[in-house]
């Protein structure tokens, strides 16, 4: 029966020693151990979080690079296109300018030719008139010895003039 009746003395010593043990362990063992464990877990957790963040940043950087590359490519295409367009436009304007220049020159030439022609025609007319007058003078000098013939001639001239 002594097995299941608690001894008062042992109960006393157990209480005393267990409480001292508890206080000693709590202060000098559990506090530093649990503190260190928590610290270590926190540092592992933060390291993992940092790694994750670095991964995300890397991805962002990569995505940024690709975006930059795509933009550069786009820019290059745009510039090429612009240059082509500009060249085409330039060619077109040059062509137009050349055409108009040519037209202008042709026009000028045509005008000059016209003027030359007019001058030449005028000269031909003058010359023809002078020749006619000379011829007429000479004829008149010879023909107008006869007055009847003079009158006749005048009449015929007049008739001609009217016709003109």
């Amino acid at each position, binding site marked *: 029966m002594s097995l299941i009746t608690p001894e008062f003395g*042992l109960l006393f010593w157990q209480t005393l020693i267990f409480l*001292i043990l508890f206080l000693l362990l709590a202060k000098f063992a559990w506090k530093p151990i649990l503190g260190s464990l928590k610290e270590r877990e926190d540092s592992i957790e933060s390291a993992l979080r940092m790694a994750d963040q670095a991964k995300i940043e890397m991805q962002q950087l990569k995505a940024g690079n690709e975006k930059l590359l795509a933009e550069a490519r786009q820019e290059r295409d745009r510039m090429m296109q612009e240059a082509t367009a500009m060249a085409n436009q330039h060619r077109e304007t040059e062509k137009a300018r050349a055409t108009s220049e040519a037209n202008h020159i042709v026009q000028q030439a045509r005008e000059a030719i016209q003027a030359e022609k007019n001058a030449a025609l005028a000269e031909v007319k003058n010359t023809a008139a002078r020749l006619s007058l000379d011829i007429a003078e000479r004829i008149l000098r010879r023909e107008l010895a006869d007055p009847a013939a003079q009158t006749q001639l005048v009449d015929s001239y007049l008739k001609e003039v009217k016709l003109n």
Partner: protein
Amino acid sequence: MKHLLSILLFLLTLPVFANEPAKGAESAQAFNPGEVILHHVADSHEWHWFSTDNGNFVSYFPIIAYQPGKGLAVFSSEKVAEGKSYDNFKLNEEHLTTLDGSKVYDFSITKNVVALAISSILLVVVFVSVAGSYRRRAGQAPSGMQSFLEPFVVFIRDEVGKKSIGPKYERYMPYLLTLFFFIWFNNLLGLTPGAANLTGNIAVTMMLALVTLVITLVSGNKNYWGHIFAPPGVPWPLYIIMVPVELIGIIVKPFSLMVRLFANITAGHIIILSFISLIFIFRTAAAGLLSVPFGLFISVLELLVAILQAYIFTLLTAMYIGSAVEDHHEEHDGAHANDFGTAEQRQGGSDLGHFAQPNVAAH
């Protein structure tokens, strides 16, 4: 540290080699297994290492007796050993009595008190050195004893403390860890031949259960007491039955803790001693062919029981504390479930959750 442990183990192991044959010589006259076994599992005022034909090898401890009116008397237990009487005192089957029948309180340093002091010093030395390793090796991987004990500390914290108590677990961790390692170490030390059966002593388990009870009662919040004095969802006439039942429940929980640990450890010791006793009952070494394998089997099983009982005691303590500090409002349950799960999930979450049922008194 290692040397200290090995010296201690050597000291505790030494008697077994000499012990058993010596007892055989004694029992040549009359071998009473019941008496021998009880003597081995019970507390004693002396530490009986072993006996030879030339005499007993016994360590005697001081007896501290307090008599109301007469004051304190301190003397060696050698003076009252083997039926002798000293002054007014006599040992009656390890129970200190007075010759004139007056009342005496026995505060003696018994075998269990010495074993308790040794194991406490061992615990302090081991865990303070482990704490030292944490300080020295801050930021490094654990090594040696630290790496052996760390999984247990983490297990008690995560699987027992966090799961059973909930968000307020940190306050109770020092007690839970002290409890677990105290019971485990003493269970193991109790298994070493010649050592005291400390955790199989009802006074020790009673004190541990009382501490758990006090912590539970002190931590009990409004909700806990509400469930006891006004169980929700119960019509008030039933309170006449329910409240006494709940009040009995408060006492039954630590009582079951006390009995479970005491019974498991003592039973294991009695079984091992019984197998060894067979040799002396049959008075033939051939009985050893049966006793040794069975004794070995039970001893190995006891190694498992040592940690299992420490775990169960700690887990149940954590659950009692958990029920005392829990805020069990329906609207708060969702928030709690995120971090720690509800009480029901927590109890069922452990692999050994079925030990949580108080009716599992012994394994």
